[in-house]
């Protein structure tokens, strides 16, 4: 048995979620091999080789893989993956884009966003927006799986010394092209790996008021998230959405500000260690899942909280 982990990266650095996937791979058992495919991604391959528990790194460095296009990645991973019992990738937008394509090319099912490994063929995942938890068993020879990072601890980034092996295979399907990328630039930590997350809901009333949350986040070294309602109302960018159809987070501290607590949102944050809710409606469902609830006007409470930290 051997597990192929597809690294998530931006050609310069490894995304931390890859470390959680390595842990899931170790729980499945067998050799853990990491594939780093990209363009000019040598540094990422070196980084992957240092992850504790990784036995080998495959590096596919070619212009065809520069932008993680699913059409090219799919062909590459389907070819390399034939020799493995499991193919794993983070449930990032890349993983969700690429792995179903790989599974179809290999004529096997794909198992999405596992939160637990029961055994080498049995896995646990959330369905119905987190309202139900399914244990699913696969009869396929190759299990193709995306991994929800919050379900697994991160493997140690240092301590390993795996060999890096170059992969020469070049797969350019020639049917898709990258045009451009617009990434939000921020000095704040990334939402899914931040130790503290402050999220705002419809109670913030408008986008400008999110400044209150940014001030608090900066004080705590945290990231800012939002509910689907806040995103749909245009208060903030869609990649800030926390919930079943957005990002899944599990920080040490989650502060929900002006959030009622729709199940869709709760599915994205109930694994947080400590949950604080600030809402003026004392009946808000968010208080049923929070460790500390403060019934107060957020426009007074949040600045006061920021000042007292």
């Amino acid at each position, binding site marked *: 048995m051997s597990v192929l982990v597809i690294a998530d990266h931006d050609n310069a650095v490894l995304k931390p979620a890859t470390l959680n996937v390595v842990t899931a791979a170790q729980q499945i058992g067998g050799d853990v091999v990491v594939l780093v495919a990209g363009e000019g991604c040598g540094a990422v391959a070196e980084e992957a080789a240092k992850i504790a528990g990784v036995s080998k790194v495959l590096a596919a460095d070619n212009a065809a893989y520069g932008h993680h296009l699913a059409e090219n990645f799919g062909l590459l991973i389907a070819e390399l993956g034939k020799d493995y019992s499991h193919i794993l990738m983070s449930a990032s937008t890349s993983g969700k884009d690429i792995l179903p394509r790989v599974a*179809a090319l290999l004529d096997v*099912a794909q*198992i999405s966003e596992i939160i637990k490994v029961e055994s080498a063929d049995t896995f646990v995942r959330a369905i119905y*927006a987190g309202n139900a938890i399914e244990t699913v068993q696969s009869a396929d020879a190759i299990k193709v799986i995306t991994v929800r990072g919050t379900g697994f601890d991160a493997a140690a980034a240092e301590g390993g010394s795996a060999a890096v092996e170059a992969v020469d295979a070049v797969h350019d399907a020639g*049917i898709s092209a*990258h045009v451009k990328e617009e990434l939000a630039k921020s000095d704040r930590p990334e939402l899914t790996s931040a130790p503290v997350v402050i999220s705002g809901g419809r109670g913030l009333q408008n986008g400008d008021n999110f400044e209150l949350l940014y001030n608090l986040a900066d004080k705590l070294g945290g990231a800012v998230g939002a509910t689907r309602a806040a995103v749909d109302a245009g208060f903030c960018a869609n990649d800030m959405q926390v919930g079943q159809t957005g990002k899944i987070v599990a920080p040490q501290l989650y502060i929900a500000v002006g959030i009622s607590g729709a199940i869709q949102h709760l599915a994205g944050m109930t694994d947080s260690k400590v949950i604080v809710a600030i809402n003026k409606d004392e009946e808000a469902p968010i208080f049923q899942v929070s460790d*500390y*609830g403060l019934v107060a006007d957020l426009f007074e409470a949040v600045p006061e909280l920021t000042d007292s930290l």
Partner: protein
Amino acid sequence: MKVLVPVKRVIDYNVKVRVKADNTGVDLSNVKMAMNPFCEIAVEEAVRLKEKGVASEVVVVSIGPKAAQEQIRTALALGADRGIHVETDEIVQSLTAAKILKAVVDKEEPQLVIVGKQSIDTDNNQTGQMLAALCGYPQGTFASEVNVDGDKVEVTREIDGGNQVVSLNLPAVITTDLRLNEPRYASLPNIMKAKKKPIENTSAADLGVELKASLTTVKVEPPPTRQAGIKVGSVAELVEKLKNEAKVV
């Protein structure tokens, strides 16, 4: 240009989901069913392409029980031209659904397939990508903007940290994200008109696809519940608790 839109019948998103007492699944008896919200967005996008003169025909296809005809009718009332119902009472897993859709694509030869990025029951987020792989088509997943230009389509994708724009050769598969559009409501005259639009009935066997399932559900359980904690009376008390009790700040 012909556009194919697969739609799925799922539990209505407003319904409170209950896990069956015997842990075999979710209780779907006597609950309201509806078109999957991401599929509604797909239908809307296809109809808008037709209204813009880009698409000439919008064909909807649904795989499911007899009652899935209701969702096909809904799509027809929203502006689709005709429907295909692949009738089955079996639970169809993503890969099999993709194979059935591939057979429909082979027959209909659409230039564009627009499909919801995931269904709100199984939350898999797979079928569109699998269909693209089986057809050898490019895929524009999690789309927030779609622009057809000659023999290519430019798709803005919602990715972690921002947006990516890709250019795909047609034919292509697009999967819809929430912000692609806001679906319209069907008007009464259009609902009446939809009743006259044709729906072709077929089956997986007719399409030459075997209903296989390599995944078995071992059990389905309710999610672990989190205990409600305490209410604090002031910001000062909150800070004190976070520092000394929870030790997270």
